[in-house]
C-alpha cells in the first residue's frame, strides 16, 4: 500500500485549526439535506453509476492494480457523502452492496481482485523485535544485563522507590522537618 513520507508533507500548507468554521453554515454539500435518503434510492444511484462504462472501466483497472474492494468501495462512498448525494450512515449500510457490485464487475471483466476483508497485519512480532533491540542497546550503554522476564519499566520503578532523596523532598505537599 502506498504511504506518505512525513518529510514530503508541507506543514505550512495545512488547514488552520478552526478554518472549517469560517465558511458559512450550509455552504458545503454535506451540510445540506442529502440528495437521497432511502437505501433503495442510494442503491439505484450506484447501479446507475456502475452502468456507466467510463466509471466501470476505471474501477476494473483499479481492481486489477491490486487495490482491495473494501478500500475502493469506501472511497467511492465517502466521495459521494462529500458531494452531498447521501449521508454517511446510509453509505455504510450500502457498502456491502457496492462491494458485491464491484465483485460482479470484476468477475464479468475476468479480473482477479482482492476483497480486503482480512484484518491488517499483526505488528506484535515487529514490536517484540523492537523491544529486543531496545534492551540490547540499554545493555550496551549501561553495561548491565536485564534478566529474562523483567522489563525496563519494572527496574525503573524499583529504582525510584529505593532511591533515597539526599536533601529530603521539596514538593509543595511535603512536610518540612521541624
Amino acid at each position, binding site marked *: 500500500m502506498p504511504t506518505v513520507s512525513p518529510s514530503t508533507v508541507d506543514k505550512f500548507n495545512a488547514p488552520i485549526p478552526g478554518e472549517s468554521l469560517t465558511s458559512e453554515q450550509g455552504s458545503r454539500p454535506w451540510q445540506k439535506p442529502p440528495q437521497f435518503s432511502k*437505501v433503495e434510492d442510494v*442503491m439505484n444511484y450506484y447501479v446507475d453509476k456502475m452502468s456507466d462504462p467510463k466509471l466501470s472501466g476505471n474501477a476494473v483497472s483499479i481492481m486489477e492494480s491490486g487495490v482491495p474492494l473494501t*478500500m475502493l468501495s*469506501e472511497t467511492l462512498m465517502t466521495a459521494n457523502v462529500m458531494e452531498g448525494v447521501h449521508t454517511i450512515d446510509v453509505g455504510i*449500510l450500502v457498502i*456491502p*452492496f457496492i*462491494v458485491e*457490485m464491484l465483485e460482479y464487475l470484476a468477475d464479468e471483466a475476468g479480473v482477479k481482485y482482492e476483497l480486503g*476483508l482480512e484484518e491488517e497485519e499483526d505488528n506484535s512480532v515487529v514490536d517484540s523485535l523492537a523491544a529486543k533491540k531496545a534492551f540490547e542497546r540499554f545493555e550496551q550503554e549501561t553495561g548491565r544485563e536485564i534478566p529474562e522476564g523483567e522489563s525496563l519499566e519494572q527496574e525503573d520503578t524499583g529504582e525510584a522507590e529505593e532511591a533515597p532523596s539526599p536533601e529530603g523532598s521539596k514538593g509543595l505537599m511535603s512536610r518540612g522537618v521541624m
Partner: protein
Amino acid sequence: MSKMARMAINNLNKSGLLDDATATSTAKGFMGNKKPKAVGDDPTSTVAHFVKLLRKQRKELSNANS
C-alpha cells in the same frame, strides 16, 4: 482506510440475513406471531436482499463462463 467497509460487511455476514437457512428460523418471535423480514422492512434486510440477488447473479455468471 477500509476499516468501515470491512466492519459493515462483517456485520451483515454475522447478522445471518444473508443465509437462506435462517430465514425460517427467525420467523418464530413471540407466540409465533413474528413474520419473516421482508424487503423494505428495514434498511439492513433490504441491502441483504439485494446482496443475495447479486450473489445469485454472480454465481450464474460463473456457471455460464465455465
